[in-house]
C-alpha cells in the first residue's frame, strides 16, 4: 500500500508570510494527525482528526494555525503569519482508527521541513 504523502518536503519563507502543508493519508485510514517535531525532540501532537472531525486540537495555536480535512481524506495545515519559532518539521500521520490493536499503529509521512527567516 502507498504510504502517507506530504508536500512540500522543504519550505523556506520569510516571517509574517503564510505557508500551507498538504497531507494524503493511507487509503482507508480514518484517523489523521499533524505533529510538530523540533530538532532532537519527539513529535508533538498539534491536531487529530477522526474522519472530518477534529477531535483533539488542544495543542494547536489557533491564533495562527488552522487545519482542515474536507471529505475525511487529505488534509491541509496552514500557518498565517509564520514566526521564526515555527521553524520545525511538520509530520502527518494516519492510523486505521477502527478498533483492534493494529488501529493504534501510526504511519508517518516524511514530513515538511519549514525554515522561517
Amino acid at each position, binding site marked *: 500500500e502507498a504510504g*502517507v504523502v506530504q508536500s512540500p518536503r522543504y519550505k523556506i519563507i520569510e516571517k509574517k508570510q503564510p505557508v500551507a502543508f498538504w497531507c494524503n493519508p493511507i487509503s482507508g485510514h480514518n*484517523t489523521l*494527525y499533524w505533529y510538530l517535531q523540533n530538532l*532532537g*525532540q*519527539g*513529535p*508533538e*501532537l498539534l491536531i*487529530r482528526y477522526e474522519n472530518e472531525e477534529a477531535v*483533539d486540537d488542544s495543542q494547536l495555536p489557533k491564533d495562527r494555525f488552522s487545519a482542515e480535512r474536507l471529505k475525511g481524506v487529505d488534509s491541509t495545515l496552514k500557518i498565517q503569519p509564520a514566526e521564526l519559532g515555527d521553524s520545525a518539521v511538520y*509530520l502527518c*500521520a494516519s*492510523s486505521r*482508527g477502527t478498533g483492534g*490493536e493494529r*488501529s*493504534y*499503529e*501510526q*504511519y*508517518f*509521512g*516524511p*514530513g515538511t521541513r519549514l525554515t522561517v527567516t
Partner: protein
Amino acid sequence: SQKIEQNSEALNIQEGKTATLTCNYTNYSPAYLQWYRQDPGRGPVFLLLIRENEKEKRKERLKVTFDTTLKQSLFHITASQPADSATYLCALSEDSSYKLIFGSGTRLLVRP
C-alpha cells in the same frame, strides 16, 4: 509534572551485541506504550506496541518489556546490525484513544 525520559546520549555498541534502550515515565498511567524508529530526514516507523497488562512482547530480533511498577519500558535489539543505527522513540497513551505522547528518543549507533 509529567515526563517521558529517554537517554539523550547516543548508545554506541558493537555489531552482534544486544542493544537495550530505556524509557521512563513520570505521572502518567499508560494504557499502552509504543516504540518507533526514526532515520534522519524521515518520519517515525512503528515497531512494537505493548499494553499495560502485558509484561513482554517480541517481534523477530526486537523485544519490549513494560513494568508499570517501575514505570519503565525496555527495548531490546538482539544481534544488532549497523542497519539498526537510528533514533528510537517511545510513546505512550493514557487511555484507549489514539493520542500518543512521545519521548525525545535515543540515538543508537551500531559499529561494524
